[in-house]
């Protein structure tokens, strides 16, 4: 991912140098613009747009904004990763055109958001799927299989060594050391923690009795701030294990555990397996509201169960007229195949096509 970004930057630098030099090398320009149009299913609109919210989808939105602004020089889109709570608050206050959120609007927020939109309700559009990796640091163990009950016990201090019988049963072929497990969780409040706990609650109800929420509740864990923090903690601590968004584990080169879900084979984290889990989700919203209820306990073949779905929250009707065109244009890009494909480079999973099409249709009728 880093390479491709560097390559793109280099390309940009090269082409702009060429343009500046005004050599008139006409052969160069089509190449450059052809590269641009690879990304674009973009119908440009002009103006400025401010949005704020979830930091979990920041990298995705940044990627989209970069592509969109690259194709449409007249547009400026500014996404502040202030956190879901702050994002929703700013949306309700009317200072932003849409909010990014790790969870759909809650009951009390629905009414406030509707009041903001004046002529219609606010709707939740699932837009970014962030698979959550179980990343670990264990010398000599390249493949590790874990399941929900084992994870529930690890993240509550009840499995404390790597050669615990439960882990050995899951990994008959691995030689697990007798060293202590050092589980790391997020010290800040985070949608990732919330999803992981919801997963544990659903898939291991007997073992996980600590509830969910954005604060991680399991006892006996060390914690570190933000995704960067837990990633760094696992890198520097032998025997450590954590949950972190897939992109962080991937970029840091950490080993990632497969999850045994009850399907015939343990599921590896890939864009495809994460999308599979979202496909199994049920839409609980009505009309164009596409709030999803994930089935964390899914046993579907090849469905990776620990995923974070983040939403864009917009007014179904009632977006100020001067922002509407750009908002619709931008969101139809993000929900297009081209937009979703961009995400795989930065560690997210694309929306499964059934849901993507619904999102696209909902965006098309925003007014």
């Amino acid at each position: 991912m880093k390479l491709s970004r560097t390559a793109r930057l280099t390309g940009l630098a090269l082409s702009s140098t060429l343009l500046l030099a005004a050599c008139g090398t006409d052969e160069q320009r089509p190449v450059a613009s052809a590269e641009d149009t690879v990304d674009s299913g973009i119908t440009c609109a002009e103006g400025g747009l401010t949005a704020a919210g979830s930091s979990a989808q920041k990298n995705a939105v940044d990627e989209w904004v970069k592509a969109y602004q690259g194709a449409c020089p007249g547009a400026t889109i500014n996404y502040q990763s202030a956190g879901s709570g702050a994002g929703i608050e700013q949306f309700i206050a009317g200072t932003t055109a849409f909010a990014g959120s790790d969870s759909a609007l809650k009951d009390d927020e629905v009414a406030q958001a509707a009041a903001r939109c004046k002529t219609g309700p606010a709707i939740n559009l699932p837009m970014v799927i962030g698979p959550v990796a179980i990343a670990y640091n264990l010398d000599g163990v390249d493949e590790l299989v874990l399941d929900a009950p084992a994870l529930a016990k690890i993240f509550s201090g009840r499995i404390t060594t790597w050669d615990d019988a439960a882990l050995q049963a899951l990994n008959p072929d691995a030689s697990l050391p007798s060293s202590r497990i050092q589980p790391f969780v997020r010290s800040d409040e985070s949608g990732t923690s919330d999803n992981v706990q919801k997963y544990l609650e659903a898939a291991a109800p007997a073992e996980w009795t600590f509830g969910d929420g954005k604060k991680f509740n399991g006892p006996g864990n060390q914690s570190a701030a933000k995704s960067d923090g837990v990633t760094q903690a696992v890198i520097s601590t032998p025997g450590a294990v954590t949950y972190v968004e897939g992109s962080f584990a991937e970029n840091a080169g950490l080993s990632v555990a497969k999850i045994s879900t009850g399907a015939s084979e343990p599921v590896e984290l890939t864009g495809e397996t994460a999308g599979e889990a979202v496909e199994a989700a049920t839409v609980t919203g009505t009309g164009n509201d596409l709030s999803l209820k994930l089935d964390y306990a899914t046993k579907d073949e090849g469905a990776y169960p620990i995923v974070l779905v983040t939403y864009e929250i917009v007014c179904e009707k009632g977006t100020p007229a001067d922002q509407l065109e750009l908002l619709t244009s931008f969101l139809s890009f993000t929900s297009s195949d081209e937009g979703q494909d961009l995400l795989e480079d930065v560690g997210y999973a694309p929306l499964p096509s059934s849901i993507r099409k619904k999102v696209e249709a909902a965006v098309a009728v925003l007014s």
Partner: protein
Amino acid sequence: MSSLSTTPPPSVSPDGRAGTLPRTGGRSSERRGDRVFRGLSLGAGLSLLGIIVAIAVFLVVQAVPALRDNTASFLTDTVWDPNAASPAFGIVALAFGTVLSSLLALAMALPVALGVALFISHYAPRRLAGPLGYVVDLLAAVPSVVYGLWGIFFLNDKVIDTSAFLAEHVGWFPLFGADGIYGRSVFLASIVLAIMILPIIASLSREVFLQVPTSQQEAALALGATRWEMIRTAVLPFGKPGVIGATMLGLGRALGETIAVAIVLSPAFVVSLDILTPNSGNTIAANIALGFAEASSTGRGALIASGLVLFAITLVVNVLARAIIHRRREFTA
């Protein structure tokens, strides 16, 4: 001033009004300048008071709805779960951790800071003292996030080793209880805080020590005092109020330090003296930083309420410092 201005007029008045007029005009403009300046400084003082009152009012107003929804006792509980459906939060663990980590930091920083200050003011050769002073001031200007990153990337490993050693050999000491996992602890946070407040205390103390009248120092030396005795009898007593003031400034920074602590600490809402282990405490400021972004409106109110407590703690610390300095002054006078 008044005696000066009353003497010239008689000598001028015989020459006529023309001579006196500019003078009176000058005098009244002086008065106007006085008045304007007094007004400006009064305004500055009042606006500071106004800002403090405004902050306090803001904190109270924002905190009250959350406090009303609170199902636990804010002042006596250690639980912190303000985003739950039935929010429950208490300040005890946070306040304890804040004060503990700051006091530890102070205990570590103060002796070193005084040593640095005395070295620069009384021991170092002049050629060294200048640059050293600059370096100390430079340390004070390093952003706290840098200290935090340095703390977690570099210092944590060392602290883990040190903690293991301490737990093994002096584990009987109440602060050094442990269960085999170290680092990301209140101990680490305190060390980082100590390093952050060290330059503040050192820099201000140095200034105070440099103000000690040479006559007193020479008198002490003339009476046969060694340099250490001179420092003990002349420099330290003179500098004491200043050092206390500097210490309180440092303590204020330690109490309110946010991001460095948030980065290095593995926080937990417990009242614990086991400073070597992770999950041995939390601080108010770090908790606000970690919780604010994803907080519900009640959660935010709870965090603001905790901010109010921090405000109060800082205020108490400052008032105490004032009281100490004041009493000192009465004694020496």
